[in-house]
């Protein structure tokens, strides 16, 4: 399978990455080169093989149902959570207007 400019533009949009027209043109052959190379996987007979879900068998654990189970990431940490935000406002994450 190969991708054209329109498909790469669509992927970039899905990935939320703005690309210029010239970047787009450069990406098409690069992505096609990589995709053509990974294409060889289609020749592998995988009849009856389950896709891997965990590389080392492990069981899912649930943490205690307690907001402050780990005080580091628990409640009352608003200022720490916002400390690295580029535009915090009134104790919230600030974003551009979403709804008119």
């Amino acid at each position: 399978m190969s991708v054209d400019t329109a498909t790469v533009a669509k992927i970039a949009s899905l990935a939320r990455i703005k690309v210029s027209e010239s970047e787009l043109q450069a990406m098409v052959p690069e992505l096609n080169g990589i995709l053509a190379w990974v294409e060889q996987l289609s020749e592998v007979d995988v009849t009856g093989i389950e896709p891997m879900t965990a590389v080392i068998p492990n069981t899912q654990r649930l943490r205690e149902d307690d907001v402050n189970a780990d005080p580091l990431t628990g409640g009352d940490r608003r200022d720490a959570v916002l400390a690295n935000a580029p535009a915090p406002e009134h104790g919230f994450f600030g974003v551009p207007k979403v709804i008119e």
Partner: protein
Amino acid sequence: MTGLTDLGIAAIRKGVVDGEFSATEVATAFNAAVAEAQVALNAFIVTTPEKALEAAAKVDADRAAGKPLGTMAGVPIGMKDLFATHGVQTTAASKILEGFKPQYESTVSQKLWDAGAGMLGKLNLDQFAMGSSNETSAFGNVVSPWRRPNDTAPLAPGGSSGGSSTAVSARLAPAATGTDTGGSIRQPAAFTGISGIKPTYGRCSRWGVVAFASSLDQAGPMARDVTDCAIMLEAMAGFDPKDSTSLNLPVPEWTANLSGDMKGKKVGIPREYRLDGIDPDVAKTWDDGIAWLKDAGAEIVDISLPHTKYALPTYYIIAPAEASSNLARYDGVRYGLRDLPDGAGLQDMYAATRAAGFGPEVKRRIMIGTYVLSAGFYDAYYTQAQKVRALIARDFTEAFKLVDVILAPTAPSSAFALGEKSADPLEMYLNDVFSVPASLAGLPAMSVPAGLDRLGLPLGLQVIGKAFDEQGVLNASLALEQRAQFTARPAKWW
């Protein structure tokens, strides 16, 4: 005091415990080495000499007070800038995280500080650990301390843990943390003539480690020799309830049980790794390694890992797929860079921020990952890759019914020059051909220096072990180390 920067973990701790020198003297010596090399080698993104001194002062005070000292007491280390460090900028070598100061400490780094280690600084790396040469960092290339004879062309320190490999081989740090997703500890270790081990997936907590491909990412130590790696891995490993894939197993006493005696052990030589056109020096080093393990008492067994050739393409579907999902968090809202063009809405802000913040290789992998996970292509690419990954893991399971460990080269060549492979992403990806299979199977694997090639550059040998058998990997690596007698080091030019 001269000579302190030539010491490794075990020697430093012993010297501090015995009172031969103080931890503060050690930290001061390494701080000076770091500062002196920074312009030429660019191994660090941020240096933290005050942190190294602070940790050393505590060790010295504890010793004076007769308190017990940790297993890493007095050892200043470099911390790959993928580990979140409280209050110290953590960037993953990306502009999108420039200025990010975590409000918490990663589990692995905290364990090292608890064991008495101090931090010299945050080490440079490939951006989001995506690369094999450290050329994708937004903070400039790391330069290897090694050079070809009569040639000043800067060489790649390997990647993604290129700052770590340069720092340890140039004697800027006795040891450093690394992370390995497809070979990022082993390949840079091989390129710079040092040792490094990636443990079994789940041994070291991923909590607080900037995520690249979560089913593959594993932290591990990079140091001068096998013993130092064992000591440091013991300090880093252990169950962490905050990482859902952390192994709930006690940490074995790897250091106490180190032994280079391979009597009764079987070593597998995978025939599929002997590629057409293999570098003759790499092939010779591999043969040397076989002879060394025989000499140590091991029996050599020819084995087959039939799906080896599919490991790289499998990796380059799975790793980008996971990366595209993990890196969705960089949105210009919660931390890091924000690019808000005039009049832009939320979606435009996301796209502009990510365009400005991610480097070309990161964008490339996010795009590939987005594509292989997109509707209509998911089964053909991603599901197929996960099935082939299961086959690759099964190959190893079958092989380990016959052998205890597997011996292979670490990388297909010695270090290449910066710029030599960066034009073609595929050519760069091929550098991981020997390291990726063990990553896909979650197995412990170690690189140890084995010799020099015709250009006088280091070559590494790789030992791959069964899941949970770091001891077997460390022991076979020790047997190699004892016979390789690798003492070469780069001549100081920086």
